């Protein structure tokens, strides 16, 4: 899992039926100093995160586990919201 900042939203009306009703967010991975590192990705939200929040996310097949796991095609899912930046001890 990695820390990331939610920086935007994605709207896709036409999508695979198994993604119906899922919220798509643009996340930017951050390093231990909370500075942006790497390219932004599109993630499915499982916790109700919003733009500007610090979150953590998982990649790979495990990304589908928060949902009906044999049924949700995602390789990138937000699985938690960090309470505040002060809660990240460096």
């Amino acid at each position: 899992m990695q820390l990331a900042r939610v920086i935007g939203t994605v709207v896709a009306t036409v999508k695979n039926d198994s993604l119906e009703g899922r919220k798509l967010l643009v996340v930017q991975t951050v390093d231990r100093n909370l500075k942006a590192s790497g390219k932004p990705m599109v993630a499915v939200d499982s916790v109700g995160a919003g733009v500007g929040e610090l979150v953590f996310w998982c990649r790979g097949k495990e990304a589908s586990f928060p949902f009906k796991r044999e049924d949700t095609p995602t390789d990138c899912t937000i699985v938690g919201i960090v309470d505040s930046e002060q809660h990240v001890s460096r």
Partner: protein
Amino acid sequence: MIIARILGTVVATQKDERLRGKKLLIVRPINVDGSDTTGYVVAVDTVGAGFHERVLVVAGSSARLAQGMKDVPVDAAIVGVIDTVDVQ
């Protein structure tokens, strides 16, 4: 998932039985601002996407979880057509 733009199609007559009837497209990953990156991926289309459209591509074993992709040998699937990307 990554954002990509559709560049072209692939026709393959000889292929795994489970890929029969699936549309194969060449997509190029792009940045959130819409600018191109390098490289390309061949992805199976599950939504009926067309040329030059911006799409969502899911990679790895999760690609098989899309509806209609069960047990299909794919590692990249197009699962959505993007209307808008709003980055603050």
